[in-house]
């Protein structure tokens, strides 16, 4: 194989392809991330409908494929085939480019998300700043979509969205700063903004930042978790697209493929902000209890988790296969479901190979944490009623913002407690 492919695979290389300067592997990672995220969005689509349905004691999609498994494919086909309408009087260029800007900003964020110590497209010195900055470009796309539609509901939706995102960004930024402050509590006293560096700082300090200076880390995480839901325009903060008031908010006038780009952007943004939260507070790619439950046995036990997950899904699938109705009409569906379970079991077997097992572990834990957050998102949507707009603003400016400032100041004071005590002592002696 040519050198530009094999060089990076050298065992002594412990950096991301972007830092190593390998365009080929960077491209491979970009394609993997793009494909993975798109696939995750498709799965999310099905899972959200199913989970929401079960929360409301319904069945959800059941017709297309066994348990509606093929529903996302049917949906995608429908969206591609639908007519693409541009309303009369719309600003055609802005209308056309708005969904693309949202997608561009969301997928640029994935450049610096660390799925593992070396499994990121690149690592930047300003990683978290870059993420916050680029993800704040998404609001531009929403504003442009709402304005270009030349219609009332989209305009109101866009106005709501921009007000909401600008005000929650501040609380979010304060929470992030308090986590970044925690990274500087080492011997050198230098913090870092790099995403990989933040996780390594948690590793070096033997704790996830959510547990650091209890309850300060937890409070900062809480602020971020609330602001994150508001930033992605999801329930209970989904005022920009509140169905009962604004039809569909800023994307009312969009149809077909363009509309599906908005959906892709929304779900990809959910994954992106969740991974910021995971990197900053939940230890990134680290497995649970890396210092409490350590040793060869625990390492082995935790490294079996990926395979066990896949075996679990396979077992569930086989159970449903057996329970499929015994009618000739369902024969193909039953066979398909069985094959689906077989694929999962095979992937599980593959993950038992020691080398694969060790390489995949970090990525597995990161994705498992993302999955937890995605479930929470769906759970919120199934549980909380929508906020009124003035309530939303009140929560943002009068609760989260003062709380963020307080947490930031307290974190600084607690971090410098020995220095402060020394300083006071000196004053008293003089």
């Amino acid at each position: 194989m040519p050198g530009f492919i094999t060089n990076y695979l050298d065992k002594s290389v412990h950096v991301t392809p972007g830092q190593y300067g390998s365009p080929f592997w960077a491209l491979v990672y970009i394609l993997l991330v793009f494909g993975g995220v798109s696939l995750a969005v498709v799965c999310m689509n099905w899972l959200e409908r199913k989970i929401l349905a079960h929360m409301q004691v319904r069945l959800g999609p059941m017709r297309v494929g066994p348990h509606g498994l093929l529903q996302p494919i049917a949906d995608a086909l429908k969206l591609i085939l639908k007519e693409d309408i541009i309303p009369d009087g719309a600003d055609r260029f802005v209308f056309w480019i708005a969904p693309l800007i949202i997608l561009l900003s969301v997928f640029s964020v994935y450049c610096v998300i660390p799925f593992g110590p070396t499994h990121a497209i690149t690592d930047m010195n300003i990683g978290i700043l870059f993420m916050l900055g680029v993800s704040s470009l998404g609001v531009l796309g929403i504003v442009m979509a709402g304005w270009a539609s030349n219609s009332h509901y989209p305009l109101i939706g866009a106005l709501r969205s921009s007000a909401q995102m600008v005000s929650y960004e501040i609380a979010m930024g304060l929470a992030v700063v308090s986590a970044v402050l925690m990274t500087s509590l080492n011997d050198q006293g230098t913090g870092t903004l790099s995403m990989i560096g933040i996780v390594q700082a948690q590793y070096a300090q033997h704790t996830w930042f959510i547990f650091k200076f209890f309850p300060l880390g937890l409070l900062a995480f809480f602020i971020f978790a609330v602001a994150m839901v508001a930033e992605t325009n999801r329930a209970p903060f989904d005022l920009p697209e509140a169905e009962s008031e604004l039809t569909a908010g800023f994307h009312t006038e969009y149809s077909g493929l363009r509309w599906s780009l908005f959906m892709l952007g929304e779900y990809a943004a959910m994954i992106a902000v969740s991974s910021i939260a995971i990197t900053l507070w939940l230890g990134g790619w680290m497995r649970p209890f890396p210092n409490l439950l350590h040793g060869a046995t625990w390492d082995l036990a935790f490294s079996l988790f990926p395979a066990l997950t896949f075996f679990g899904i396979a077992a569930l699938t086989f159970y449903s296969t057996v329970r499929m109705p015994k009618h000739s009409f369902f024969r193909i569906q039953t066979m398909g479901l069985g094959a689906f379970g077989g694929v999962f079991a095979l992937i599980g077997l593959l993950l038992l190979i020691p080398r694969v097992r060790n390489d995949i572990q970090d990525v597995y834990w990161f994705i498992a944490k993302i999955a937890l957050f995605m479930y929470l998102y769906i759970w919120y949507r199934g549980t909380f009623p929508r906020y009124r707009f003035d309530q939303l603003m009140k929560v943002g400016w009068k609760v989260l913002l003062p709380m963020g400032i307080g947490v930031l100041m307290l974190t600084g004071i607690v971090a410098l407690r020995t220095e402060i005590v020394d300083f006071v002592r000196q004053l008293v002696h003089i």
Partner: protein
Amino acid sequence: MQPVATTFFFYLLAGLAIASGVLVITRRNPVHSALALILTLLSLAGLYLMLYAPFVAGVQIILYVGGIMVLFLFVIMLVNLERSEREKQFNQQWIAGVAAAIALGALFVSIYWKGHAIFPAPMKLAAETDNTQRVGEMLYSNYMFPFEIASLLLLVAIIGAVVMAKKRI
């Protein structure tokens, strides 16, 4: 990692900045102008990156593009566009404009030709990895006073805005 194709990216970003800057003043529709301004600011952020100042680039994107321009668009969307499109876009003071442009151009050219003595000799570039730390250290040591004064000014601006917007507090 060594930077690649720096000349190409410099001319690309500089060209983008100039072209979108021209669009800002020639578009009739204020929303289009604002979008072109966003492109200008983004290409400036790219130029900062090329100067090994990633922190400044990040702040440029967050503050200008993510914050200020969103507020710009927010306000423009509430403006009556039909009326603003009928208004005259340029005023007719050609002579003053040309004179100012020539004066500024002459200044640039003269600095380009014999300005080398004015500017300090190029310093050794600091490593890109500790750029952000350097900015932080400088702000909290050498430039502490101007930094605090600037934040005080911003506070005054905030209070002023609230006082002017609300007649009764």
